């Protein structure tokens, strides 16, 4: 699905992402983990195509499949939550289909109480649920999420995780998400990639990597990553 070849991204002279090779297969759910500033956001942006790598190439080799991306700080549009959802629906959908998609996703992320509130004035966690709803409202094959539940409360986190798992299973979605939550990685991911200084320090099955990190940095990092 995604092939990354020799990408490098610089901030001035400093290399902030440097990945010689990485492939992500269809249907995989990858959790990107790593300390602040390890390059998770930058890597996601490069895959999403919102910024370009200075060297190397990212290819998404499944025809007709495009990445959808939820930034670390999502923007709530200055209209009701309902209209935030309507704005992203394709024009060729019938009225009934639109109605159903909206009510389904409102229920999925418990947004019904917020439906009439203004999207730009929600709290951080509410904004994240709405931002995710805007993505999950129609089927997607490739989702890139940057810490989608970082501001949500415990119930919000549960809602988001359940929604993601259900959505990915139903639509056979490939998922790449940055997270700071070990529980989330174990819950959702089929593979965990640990970044350090823009490079892949370790990569492997979630349980395995969390319990038995192989590298020195991996061991240090996992010290603080207890469930």
């Amino acid at each position, binding site marked *: 699905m995604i092939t990354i070849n020799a990408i490098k991204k610089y901030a001035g002279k400093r290399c902030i992402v440097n990945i010689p090779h990485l492939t992500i297969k269809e249907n995989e759910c990858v959790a990107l983990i790593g300390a602040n500033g390890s390059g998770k956001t930058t890597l996601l942006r490069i895959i*999403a195509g*919102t910024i370009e790598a200075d060297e190397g190439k990212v290819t998404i080799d499944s025809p007709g499949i495009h990445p*959808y991306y939820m*930034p670390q700080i999502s*923007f709530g*549009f200055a209209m009701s939550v309902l209209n935030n959802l309507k704005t*992203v629906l394709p024009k060729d959908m019938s009225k009934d289909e639109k109605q159903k998609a909206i009510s389904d996703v409102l229920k999925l992320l418990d947004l019904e109480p917020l439906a009439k509130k203004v999207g730009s004035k929600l709290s951080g966690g509410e904004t994240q649920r709405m931002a995710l709803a805007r*993505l999950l409202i129609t089927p997607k094959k490739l989702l890139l999420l940057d810490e989608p539940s970082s501001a949500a409360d415990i119930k919000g986190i549960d809602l988001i995780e359940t929604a993601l798992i259900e959505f990915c299973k139903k639509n056979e979605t490939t998922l790449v998400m940055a997270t700071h939550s070990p529980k989330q990685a174990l819950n959702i991911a089929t593979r965990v990639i640990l970044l350090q200084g823009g490079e892949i320090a370790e990569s492997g099955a979630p349980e395995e990597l969390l319990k038995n990190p192989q590298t020195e940095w991996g061991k240090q990092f996992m010290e603080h990553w207890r469930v």
Partner: protein
Amino acid sequence: MNAFKQAMSLVFSLDKELWHIIGVTLRMSLSSTAISCIIGIPLGVFLGSSRRFRGKALLMRILHTLMGLPPVVAGLLVFLLLSHSGPLGSLKLLFSVEAMVIAQCVLIIPIVIGLCASVIGINAPRLLETANGLRLPRTSKTKLLLIENKVPLVSVVLTGFGRAISEVGAVSLVGGNIQFKTRVMTTAIMLETNKGNFEFAIALGFLLIMIAFIINFAASFLKGNSYDYY
């Protein structure tokens, strides 16, 4: 105080010349504001929301210089352009309201573009990162940028209008301050004050402020209520 009383009686006596002057003033400033916004807002939105491209920095620098263009220089430019022997002399527009509108557009378009670009530039990067992530089409993105910046954009339009209605240098140069033709409130105030005819000048000044007030008041309705509390 006596002069003020006489001025008020002029205002309420529906003096023919006074009302003609107001008519020309409104026609001129509304036209030049409208034209400047129709040209300037799309360009401003484009500049404010575009990423860095080659020449953008230079373009912005030129724009900021033009925003401070002295009105008489703009007037002189348009004067030369429209004068008998000038390149557009055959249009015979000099000393007409049209000429005044053209001169004002030269002044106001850069202001509208520049202000609009700064306003849009504030939240465009974040808004576009989200909108691009959702793969929204260009039309939706433009619409979102405009909705998001509705309030400051109204202020941009008002700034343009304020510039148009209060400007003297350019309009007196290319309009000629001709009675019952191109005389507007500002040029009339200049003339009447020079003549020592203070009542007329005060009446016009009073009305000029009233018009500005009414338009700003109307605009605050347009901006709508917002429940920001910080």
